[in-house]
C-alpha cells in the first residue's frame, strides 16, 4: 500500500492529465455537461413553481392570526353565518384589541370572471368584502398606488398580483360585475401573500350587491399572542349559539396549498428523474470515451507503479467535476430564467385564482448541484472501473 501522500499525488497527476485533455474532447464533454445542465435546469425550474406557490401561501398567514368558518366548511367559499354569529365571535377571549374595538373582520368571499392578460381566457378572480379591522388584522397590507377605497361606497382596491395578471385592474379602471360597476382606487401589496390575488371592497356594499342580507362567510381575527389560540378556539367550539370552527391562518393556508404543491412536486421529480437517467447515459458515454482515448497513458502509469485505486478516484473526480460544472450552469440558468417570474394558478379548494412568483431558493440550487454530483458519480464509476481493470500488457500494446 502506497503512502497517503503518494496516493494523493498519483490521483492528482491522473486527474490533471484527464482535465488537460478536455479541449481535445470538447464536443463530447460539452454535450455531457449540457445534458446535466438541462436536467438541473428542469428540476430547479419545476420545483420553483411549488416553492413559489408554497411561499405565497406561507406568507399569507401569521401564527397569531386565526380564521373562523362554519364547521364542516373547508374554504371560505362554502362557509357562511349571520351577523349574530360574527358579533359573538368578535367578543371571544384572546382577540387583540385596537383603538376601535376587537381586531376581528367579518368578511365575504365571492369570485368574478375576468380575462387573464396572458391568455385572454376567463379566470375566477376572488372579490372580498372586508370590515375596517381587516387592515389591522393583516399587518402587512399597504396601499402602493392610488388610495384606499371609501367605506360605504362601491370603490375597490386591487391586490398587486391580481392587477398584474388580469385585464382592467388599474387605478381609474371600472370593473363591470353584472349590473354594477366598481371603480378601482388603489393597488395594495400584502407581503407576497394570497391576498395580493384578490380585489377588496367594503363588506356591507358587497352584501347588498350580492343580496346576501346580513351574512358573512368568515371572520379573520388577530390574537393577542399565538398561545391564545387554544383558548379562543375552545370558547368558540363550546359556545352553543355557534356552529363554527377556528383554524390558525398558517394551518389554513398550508392546507389550501397542499394539493397544488403535491401535484407539482410529484410531476417535477418524475420528469427530472427520467431526465437524470438520460443524463447518466450521456455522462457514461463521455467518460468511456475519455478513458478509452487514454488507454495507453493509463496503462503506462500503472506500469510505473500507480495504484488502480488512484485511477478509479481520478476518473470519478473528472466526471464529478464536469457534472458539477454542468449542474452549476443549469442552476444559474434556471435562476435567471425563472426566479421572480409572475404567474397565477388555480387554488383547487376555492376554485379561485392565486397569483404568485416562482421562487428559485438557495435550497433548490443546492439540490440541483447535488443531483448533478450524483449523476457525475454514477457516470464516472463504471468507466473508472474499466480503466483500472484493464490488463496492463494488453493495453500497452493497443494502438
Amino acid at each position, binding site marked *: 500500500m502506497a503512502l497517503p501522500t503518494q496516493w494523493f499525488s498519483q490521483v492528482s497527476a491522473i486527474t490533471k492529465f484527464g482535465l488537460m485533455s478536455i479541449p481535445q474532447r470538447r*464536443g*463530447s464533454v*460539452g*454535450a*455531457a455537461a*449540457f*445534458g446535466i445542465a*438541462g436536467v438541473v*435546469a*428542469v428540476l430547479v425550474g*419545476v420545483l420553483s413553481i411549488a416553492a413559489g406557490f408554497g411561499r405565497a401561501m406561507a406568507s399569507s398567514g401569521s401564527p397569531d392570526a386565526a380564521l373562523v368558518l362554519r364547521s*364542516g*366548511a*373547508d*374554504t371560505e*367559499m*362554502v362557509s357562511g353565518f349571520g351577523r349574530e354569529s360574527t358579533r359573538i365571535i368578535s367578543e371571544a377571549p384572546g382577540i387583540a384589541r385596537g383603538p376601535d374595538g376587537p381586531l376581528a373582520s367579518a368578511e365575504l368571499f*365571492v*369570485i*368574478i*370572471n375576468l380575462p*387573464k392578460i*396572458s*391568455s385572454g*381566457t*376567463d*379566470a*375566477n378572480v376572488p372579490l372580498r368584502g372586508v370590515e375596517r379591522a381587516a387592515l389591522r388584522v393583516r399587518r402587512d397590507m399597504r396601499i402602493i398606488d392610488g388610495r384606499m377605497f371609501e367605506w360605504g361606497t362601491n370603490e375597490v382596491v386591487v391586490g398587486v398580483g391580481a392587477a398584474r395578471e388580469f385585464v382592467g385592474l388599474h387605478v381609474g379602471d371600472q370593473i363591470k*360585475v*353584472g*349590473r354594477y360597476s366598481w371603480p378601482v382606487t388603489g393597488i395594495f401589496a400584502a407581503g407576497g401573500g394570497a391576498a395580493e390575488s384578490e380585489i377588496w371592497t367594503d363588506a356591507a356594499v358587497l352584501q347588498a350587491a350580492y343580496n346576501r342580507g346580513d351574512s358573512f362567510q368568515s371572520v379573520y381575527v388577530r390574537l393577542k399572542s399565538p398561545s391564545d389560540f387554544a383558548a379562543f378556539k375552545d370558547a368558540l367550539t363550546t359556545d352553543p349559539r355557534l356552529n363554527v370552527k377556528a383554524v390558525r391562518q398558517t394551518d389554513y393556508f398550508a392546507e389550501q396549498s397542499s*394539493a397544488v404543491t*403535491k*401535484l407539482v412536486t*410529484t*410531476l417535477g421529480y*418524475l*420528469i427530472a428523474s*427520467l*431526465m437524470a*437517467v*438520460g*443524463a447518466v*447515459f*450521456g455522462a*457514461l*458515454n463521455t467518460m*468511456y*470515451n475519455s478513458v478509452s482515448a487514454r488507454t495507453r497513458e493509463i496503462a503506462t502509469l500503472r506500469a510505473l507503479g500507480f495504484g488502480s485505486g488512484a485511477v478509479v478516484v481520478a476518473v470519478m473526480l473528472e466526471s464529478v467535476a464536469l457534472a458539477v460544472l454542468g449542474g452549476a450552469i443549469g442552476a444559474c440558468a434556471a435562476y435567471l430564467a425563472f426566479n421572480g417570474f409572475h*404567474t*397565477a*394558478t*388555480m387554488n383547487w379548494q376555492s*376554485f379561485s*385564482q392565486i397569483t404568485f412568483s416562482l421562487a428559485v431558493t438557495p435550497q433548490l440550487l443546492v439540490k440541483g448541484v447535488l443531483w448533478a454530483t450524483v449523476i457525475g458519480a454514477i457516470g464516472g464509476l463504471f468507466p473508472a472501473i474499466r480503466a483500472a481493470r484493464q490488463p496492463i500488457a494488453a493495453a500497452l500494446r493497443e494502438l
Partner: protein
Amino acid sequence: MKFLPLIWSNLRRKKTRTVLTLLSIIVAFVLFGFLSAIRQALLGGVSLEGANRLIVRHKVSIIQLLPMSYKERMERIPGVAMATHQTWFGGIYQDPKNFFMQNPVIPDEFMRIHPEFILPPEQMRAWQRTRTGAVVGRKTAERFNWKVGDKVPIQSSIWSRKDGGFLWEFDIVGIFDGRDKNTDTTPLFFRYDYFDEARSGARGEVGWYSIRIQDSARAAEVAKLVDAEFENSAAETKTEPEGAFVQAWAQQVGDIALITASILGAVFFTILLVTGNTISQSVRERTGELGVLKAIGFTNAAVLGLVMAESCLLSLLGGGIGLAVAWALTSHGDPTGGMLPLFFFPVHDVVLGVLISVAMGLVTGFFPALQAMRLRVADSLRRI
C-alpha cells in the same frame, strides 16, 4: 437495403457507445410520452361530442346560480335542440383527498345530451324509478369498490338538507362507461328532483346549463342569441362552446402547453447534442474506412446516405422503443391518485413522436454525413 449489414456492423463497432446513445434517446421519448399524457390529462377533456354543446353559466362567475326557468326560454331560441342543467354539489366521500365530481341532473335529459356516457338500459330504468338513485362512472366505482345496490354517504361542502345536515345518502343504481378514451368516468350523477326538494335553500336554482345545438357550425351565433335573451335580467349569462369552456378552465391552472413544450424543448435539444456528438465522433474514427469505401467506388451520395442511415436507424430504434415503453407505462393510468383522471398517451402524439424521431435522425446525421461526404480519398487514407 443491401447495405443494412454494413450499417449494422458500424453501429456494433463500439457496442457500449451505441447502447448508451440508444438508451438516452429512449429516455427522451419516454419523457415525451409522459408529458403528452400529462398535457392530455389537463387539456384534453374535450370530446368530439362537445362540439355540439354549449355551456351557459352566470356571467359574473360560475358560483352564481341560474333560475331553472331559463330552460324553456333557451329551448325556444332558434338553433337550440335541447337544454339541460347541472349543479356543483362539492361533496366529499370519507376524505377530502378522494376528490371526484358529483352533480344533480335530470336523468333522461342528461343522458340524451351526453351520449358519451354509456349506461345499460335496465340501469337507466332503475334510475328513473329510484328517487335517491345515483349513477357513477366506472373509474370511481372501481376505486371505492362500489356495486349496484350500495348506499353511499357523501358530505356536501355546500348544500345542507332541510334538517340542517350536510350528509346525503345515495343509492347506486348504475355504473356507466365512457364511449371514448377521453371520456371522464370519475363523476357521480344523481337526481335533481330529489336534490331540489331536500336542500334547505336555493330552490329552483341550478349551476349551469348545457345546450345541444342543431348545427355545430353555428355555435358562435347561437351563443350570442342565448346571451342576448338574458341580457339586462337579474342573472345575465355567458355562453361558450364546451371546448372553449374546458380550455379556459385549464388555462386557470396555468399555461400547461407552454410548460410541457419548454421541458420537451430542453430534453430534445440535449439529446440532439449527445447523439449528434456520438455520431460525428464515430465518423471521425472511421475516416480511414470511409476513404477506402470511396476508393473502391462508393459515390459521395452513397457515403452521405450510409452515415445518414446509421443516425436514422439509431434514432428510430430509440424512438420506437421509447414510445413503446411510454405507452406501457402510461397505460396504468393516473400516477397521482385521482388528480388527473384523463391521463393517457393519445395516438396522435404517438405519431408525432415517430415523426420527431425521424427528424432527429436526419438532423443528427446531417453534419457528420456532410463531413464524410467531403472527405478526399487521398487525405483520408493518409490520415491513419
